[in-house]
């Protein structure tokens, strides 16, 4: 296999993974947009969502399980809004961040109480054999996964573009008190944002679950999202898509060509080093917003 074909194949593999990274990162973006806070519970939500789908599938079938999971995530969203966000309005981002750590702990505990801690398979019945184009292998499952993820991202981006909820969210993140004074129904908007993040968690959970199984360790996949967030810009949906693709490709190529030279798993390093580089050049990410400050 010559280097070119290899590079092409790596790039494609990387890009397909990149879309899935972006999907995970998107969950963070949604919450950040709504309350300018880093949602530590996103990983636990992803696990919880995937477990719900797996657990309910035998009863309702895949479609039914997805719907039920969405309902479940909505319930969680409403609870989080009522019992976490509302009492903490106006408090520091750090305090709210810590509250999401608490939420993660609760979700993880409940998930393990309900579903146990044994890993579960989540098969999507996608064609298994790889497709071949001019000697380059592409997995139809990955293609499909990337397609679904891409579509979800697009839908969400459009939702933000064309509804005033998007504007309301940004206002809310900028100054919740003033937003309330404008008549933004904070409670509903927050619940909606968290539900949306829950929906993203379902898609991410199912897609990743079909690759790596549904298991507690899944929460760690969300760490992959962090460098992507800062590369793309924490509040930018197009930004994280772009960054996801970039990181996916860079990781694959880096692992393929650089890894052998330095003799180590450099994947993670690449993502983080790229993130640091971007930060030095553009402190607010590629497409993120500069924080507005003037005297």
């Amino acid at each position: 296999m010559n280097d070119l074909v290899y590079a092409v194949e790596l790039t494609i593999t990387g890009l397909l993974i990149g879309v899935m990274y972006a999907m995970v990162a998107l969950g963070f973006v949604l919450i950040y947009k709504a309350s300018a806070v880093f949602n530590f519970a996103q990983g636990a939500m992803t696990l919880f969502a995937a477990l719900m789908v797996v657990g309910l599938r035998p009863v309702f079938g895949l479609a039914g399980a997805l719907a039920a999971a969405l309902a479940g995530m909505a319930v969680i969203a409403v609870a989080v809004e009522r019992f976490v966000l509302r009492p903490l309005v106006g408090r520091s981002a750090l305090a709210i961040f810590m509250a999401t750590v608490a939420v993660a702990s609760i979700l993880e505990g409940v998930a393990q109480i309900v579903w146990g801690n044994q890993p579960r398979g989540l098969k999507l019945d996608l064609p298994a054999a790889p497709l071949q184009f001019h000697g380059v292998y592409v997995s139809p499952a990955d293609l499909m996964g990337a397609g679904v993820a891409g579509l979800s991202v697009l839908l969400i981006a459009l939702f933000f573009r064309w509804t005033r909820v998007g504007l309301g969210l940004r206002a809310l993140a900028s100054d919740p008190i003033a937003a309330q004074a404008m008549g933004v129904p904070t409670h509903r908007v927050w619940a909606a944002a968290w539900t949306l993040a829950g929906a993203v968690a379902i898609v991410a959970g199912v897609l990743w679950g079909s690759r790596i199984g549904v298991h507690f360790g899944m929460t760690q996949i969300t760490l992959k999202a962090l460098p992507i967030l800062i590369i793309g810009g924490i509040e930018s949906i197009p930004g994280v898509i772009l960054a996801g693709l970039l990181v996916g490709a860079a990781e694959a190529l880096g692992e393929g060509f650089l890894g052998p030279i330095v003799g180590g798993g450099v994947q993670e390093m690449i993502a983080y080093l790229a993130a640091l580089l971007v930060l030095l050049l553009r402190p607010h990410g590629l497409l993120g917003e500069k924080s507005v400050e003037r005297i």
Partner: protein
Amino acid sequence: MAATVPLLELEGVEVVYDGSVLALKGVSLVVPEGGVVALLGANGAGKSTTLKAVSRVLAAEGGSVRRGRIRFRGEAIDTRTTAELVRRGIVHVLEGRRLFRQLDVEENLRMGAYSRSDRAGIRSDLEEVYALFPRLRERRKQKTGYLSGGEQQMAAIGRGLMGRPALMLLDEPTMGLAPAIASEVFAVVRRLNTERGVAFLLSEQNLGLALRVAGHAYVLESGSVSFAGEPAALAGAGRAEAAYFGA
């Protein structure tokens, strides 16, 4: 005035911050339907607090109404959320502007109309605001965080106007405005009041301006009303000056 219910009525309102600072000590005041009422008083007298108590922004700042009643169109509003009050027509232009700094001017103005759904009306109001403050039109796509102080003040007032209020609470609307714009703002207050019947409760330091538009004035002194009545009487009695010196 037994027959007509006033638009807004405060009765013996006491406000505490953080459970320990008594900022209002039983304030009573009335804004009649279609009236313009000025709140005067020295720094720290409690003007902003009074407005915040009405719009219920107070809670978010650690304050609460400990005693007394606040009624809007005869109905107690002490338990409503700010958002609900906005839908009922009470719009508060906050002290310190509190613009959404990350949003541009136009987005801020649109946020002012968040609870409205008449697209055409919003369009035309937007135009009206731009006509009132041409400077804002020039800076439409500028993030408000970068605006100059006066431009921010214009954006804050414009954003309030976009809510098509029935009662507008203005906290020091002319602060930081150049004279030309300041008098323009008061011209608009007068116009909205006469043409649309919008009522105003405004706290203002510029005595001359305030008294010119207000039909009624209250002077606050350390959290209590020390004078209430016609602006003319106030000016004549020299009471305002007295209040200002804290005597």
